[in-house]
């Protein structure tokens, strides 16, 4: 797919748009891993007790 705009987009804006996209996707993935840690691995007794059944059912090491 090529740009159909008549005004050329400066190179620095093109690179910065791609970099921004990838940074935002990385931030989303990292947030996903942090939430997974909290639900499935955090050793806090409160987190463990609240998510106990889900840890067992999703086959995470629990006790």
């Amino acid at each position, binding site marked *: 797919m090529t*740009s159909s705009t008549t005004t050329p987009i400066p190179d620095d804006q093109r690179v910065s748009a*791609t970099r921004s*996209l990838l940074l*935002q996707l990385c931030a989303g993935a990292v947030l996903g891993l942090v*939430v997974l840690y909290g*639900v499935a691995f955090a050793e806090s007794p409160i987190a463990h007790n609240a998510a*106990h059944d889900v840890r*067992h059912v999703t086959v995470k*090491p629990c006790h």
Partner: protein
Amino acid sequence: MIFRRLIWAALAVAMLVGGLQSGLQQWQTMPIILAAEGLESQKVETALAVADTHAHGDGAAHDHGDDAETWTPADGVERQIWTWVANVLHAFSMALLVLAVMAVCQWRGSALRALPLAAWVAAAGWLSFHFWPSLGLHAEIPGMDAARLGSRQGWWVLAAGGAALACAAVALVRSPLRWAVAAGWLALPFVVGAPHIMADPLAGFTREAQVALRQLGSQFIWTTAWLSLSFWLSIGVLAGLAFQRWLHPAVAAVLERSDAGCAPAMKAPQ
């Protein structure tokens, strides 16, 4: 902003998948967990169990929620609500990863439509986050003794990470060597070996309780296997629809303004 769309799309997927899983678990796995917990009260704590199983990283003893000092959701509605919250958060974390990986595939010029792409990514998610770690550390019902928690968690991360890197190698590397690289990553956790105790995991129980728990344990393995399939199937379908609706157009607009815009774009189904 892509990040905001990613969060909302993942949240929408998570609410539906988390609700579905809570319903299925209430029906399929809660009876097994409650039966195992009923038998757990008959357990005689062995020295091994105290040292290896119930000692957490901070050295605190733990006894499945019977500890009066630690908050535990009460059986019934309170426990169901917290299980629903945990299911939604678990689905949210997996949906975020699936949607982010799909967007990266779009950036790299994947020619797949949203649903087939979601199916491939969800299949990789099932392999990495359920199947591969489960081959070394089976699903366990409450009450079974096992190796130290930290070492099992470390091995789980190694198995999931190895399988995810194997999938990435197959999907991203062009060289024929990618199959060898993928096989290496898949083999690594099993070369290291999953941590297990030498003793019988049910050593602290009477013979009758052991028979009942073995039956519940094997039932639990099969039930969690099909529940994980239902989880990843629903994540795949719903993440595919959410991606097509909310993320694909936004990512395509960014790519149009960037260098990567020359790659063939994924076509949304008509």
